[in-house]
C-alpha cells in the first residue's frame, strides 16, 4: 500500500478515529471527567464571549449608577431585577465582573503555562541532549529554585519588576509581569521531566540514525525527540494551568497582581473581602466559588489525563 492511498483512506475518519481511541474511551468511561471537561469548556466559553453574554458592561462608567452599589443578589428580599448576583461597591454587576474577571484569570493562566512550558521544555531538551557542564548548570539552577515555593519566587519577581518599572509604568505592564513571574516559577517541573525522558530517548536507534544522516542537533531535538516526550509535558501543563490560575488569584488577592480597574477573579475576591464583615458576602463569595469550580474542574481533568496516559496504572 502506498502512502497516498493510506492517507486517503484515513482522511474522512479523523473524528471516528478520535472517538475510537483508547484515550476517548477512558474519557467516556469516567463521568467525573466528562463533567469537569464540560464545566471547563462552559467557563472558558463564558469568559471568551463575556462582552456578548454579560448583562452589563462593568467597565463603562456611564452605565454605572452609584445608587446601585452593594445590592444583594436578585433572589433575596432587597434584590433588584437585572442584577442576578448583586452588585459591588461601585455599583458594578457581580455576574458581569466575574465573567470579565475570568478572562484575565484564564489569559494570565494560559500565557504563563505556555511560557513555563516553552522555557522548561527547551532547557530540559538542551540539558538532556547536550549533557556535560550545560546539563549540570541548568539542573543546579532548577534544584535551587525547587527548594523555594513557587509563590515566593513569583512574589520576588513581582517585587523586582515593581522596583525597576516605577509605580506608573508598573500599572501598565502588570499583566506581563504576572505572566513572567508565574511562568518563571513553574518551568522546573517541565525541565526535569523532559530531561529525564530525553536521556532515555537519546540512546534509541532513531536518534542515532538521525545523527548518522547528518541532521543538526537542534533539528533532532525539536523534530524527533520532542514529539516522543510530549505526553508527560501535556499532563504537567494541565495540572499547572490550575496552579497558575490559583497563583494569579493569590497574587492579585495579596495586592500585587492586577489592579481593581481591570479585576481578575483574585482582585474581585480582594475587593469583596473588605465588605465581608458588613454583611455584603456576595461581593466576595461568588467570585470565590467561580475560582474554586474552575480550579477543581481543571485539576480533575489533569488527574484523569495523568492516569489515562500512564500505562502503568491501566
Amino acid at each position, binding site marked *: 500500500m502506498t502512502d497516498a492511498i493510506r492517507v486517503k483512506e484515513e482522511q474522512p475518519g479523523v473524528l471516528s478515529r478520535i472517538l475510537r481511541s483508547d484515550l476517548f474511551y477512558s474519557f467516556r468511561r469516567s463521568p467525573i471527567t466528562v463533567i469537569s471537561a464540560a464545566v471547563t469548556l462552559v467557563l472558558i466559553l463564558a469568559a471568551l464571549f463575556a462582552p456578548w453574554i454579560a448583562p452589563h458592561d462593568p467597565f463603562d462608567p456611564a452605565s454605572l449608577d452609584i445608587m446601585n452599589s452593594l445590592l444583594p443578589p436578585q433572589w433575596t428580599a432587597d434584590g433588584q431585577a437585572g442584577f442576578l448576583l448583586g452588585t459591588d461597591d461601585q455599583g458594578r454587576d457581580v455576574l458581569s465582573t466575574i465573567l470579565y474577571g475570568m478572562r484575565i484569570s484564564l489569559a494570565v493562566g494560559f500565557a504563563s503555562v505556555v511560557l513555563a512550558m516553552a522555557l522548561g521544555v527547551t532547557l530540559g531538551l538542551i540539558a538532556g541532549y547536550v549533557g556535560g557542564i550545560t546539563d549540570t548548570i541548568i539542573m543546579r539552577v532548577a534544584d535551587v529554585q525547587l527548594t523555594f515555593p513557587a509563590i515566593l519566587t513569583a512574589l520576588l519577581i513581582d517585587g523586582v519588576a515593581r522596583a525597576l518599572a516605577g509605580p506608573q509604568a508598573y500599572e501598565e505592564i502588570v499583566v506581563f509581569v504576572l505572566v513572567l513571574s508565574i511562568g518563571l516559577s513553574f518551568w522546573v517541573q517541565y525541565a526535569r521531566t523532559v530531561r529525564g525522558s530525553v536521556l532515555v530517548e537519546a540512546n534509541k536507534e532513531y536518534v542515532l540514525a538521525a545523527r548518522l544522516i547528518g541532521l543538526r542537533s537542534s533539528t533532532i531535538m525539536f523534530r524527533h525527540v520532542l514529539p516522543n516526550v510530549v505526553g508527560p509535558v501535556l499532563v504537567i501543563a494541565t495540572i499547572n494551568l490550575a496552579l497558575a490560575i490559583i497563583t494569579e488569584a493569590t497574587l492579585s*488577592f495579596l495586592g500585587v497582581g492586577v489592579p481593581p480597574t481591570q479585576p481578575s477573579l483574585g482582585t474581585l475576591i480582594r475587593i469583596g*473581602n473588605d465588605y465581608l464583615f458588613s454583611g455584603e458576602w456576595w461581593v466576595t463569595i461568588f467570585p470565590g466559588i467561580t475560582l474554586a469550580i474552575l480550579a477543581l474542574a481543571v485539576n480533575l481533568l489533569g*488527574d484523569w489525563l495523568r492516569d489515562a496516559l500512564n500505562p502503568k496504572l491501566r
Partner: protein
Amino acid sequence: MLAFAIRRLIQAVGVMLVVALISFLLFRFVGDPVNQLVGVDTTPEQRAQLRQDLGLNDPVYVQFGRFVGKAARFDFGISYQIKRPVADLIASRLPATLELSLVSAVFALLVGLPMGVYTGLYPQTLLSRLFLALSLTGISLPTFLIGILLIFIFSVNLGWLPSFGRGDVVTIGGFWTTGLLTRSGLSSLILPAITLGLFQMTLIMRLVRGEMLEVLRTDYIKFARARGLSSRAINFGHALKNTLVPVITITGLQIGSIIAFSIITETVFQWPGMGLLFLQAVQNVDIPIMAAYLLLIAFLFTVINFIVDLLYVAVDPRIRIGGAGA
C-alpha cells in the same frame, strides 16, 4: 556518614551563597540605596559623600563580601519605609510566624496521619471516598479562599472565633511573644492554623494512604498474616512503621513551605508575622526587608533540608550504601 554530611554541607553553603548573591544584587542594583536614604534637598556633594561612606564606590566583589559579612551578623541595614533596622523588625515578627507555622504543622500531622491510615486500610468505604474527595477540594481551593470561607462561617455568621490579629500575647524572656498562654491568643490561633495546615494535611493524608497501600501488598505483610498475628499488630506495628520514613521526610521539608505560605494566611487574618512584613515590603519596594526575608527563608530551607537529609541516611541504611544519590 561523615563524608556524606560534609558533602551536603558544602552544597548547602553553595546554595546559600547563590541566594546571598541574588539578594545582594537586589539590594545594590534595584533602585538606588542613596536616593532611598536622603531627602530631595540633599546636595550632590552630600550624596557623593554618603555614597563614599556607604562604600558604594568600592569594587562590586568587595561590596558583596561586606554584604555577606554583615548578613552573617544579622545586619541587614535599615528599612527604607519604616526607618528601623531590618533585623529588629524581623526579630519582632518572627515569634508570631513560627508559632503559627508550628501549630499548623502539628495540626496537619495529627489529623492527616489518622485519615491517611484509615483510607489506606479501608480504601473502599464511603468515609474513605469522602476523605479523598475532600482532599482534592482542599488541593483545588486556594489558601486565601479557605481562610475567607472560614472567616465567613466562624467569625461573621457564627461569631465563635476572632477573624484577625493574635489576641493578647505574653512576653517570655524579654523577646519572645506568645499567644499560646492566653484565651484570646489561643482562639485567635485556631482559624489561621487550620487555614495554613489544611493543604499540608491533605498532602500527608494522600502520602500515608499511598504508602500504606503499597506496604500492605508486600510479602512480609502477607507472611505476618500467615503467622496469625493480629490485624492491629500488622497494621500498626509492621505496616505503619514502614510508611513513616517518607512521611517524616516530607513533613520536615513541608515546614519550610508552611513558613513561606504563611505570607498568604497572615494577609487574610492580618496576623502580625514575617510574611505580612515581607508582603508590605514588596508593595512598598522596601528592598532591605525583601533581601533579608529571602536570605532568612533560604537559610531555614537549607537547614531543614540538611537535617532531613541526615535523618534520612540515619533511618534508611540503603541510602548509606548508595552514597549521595537523592
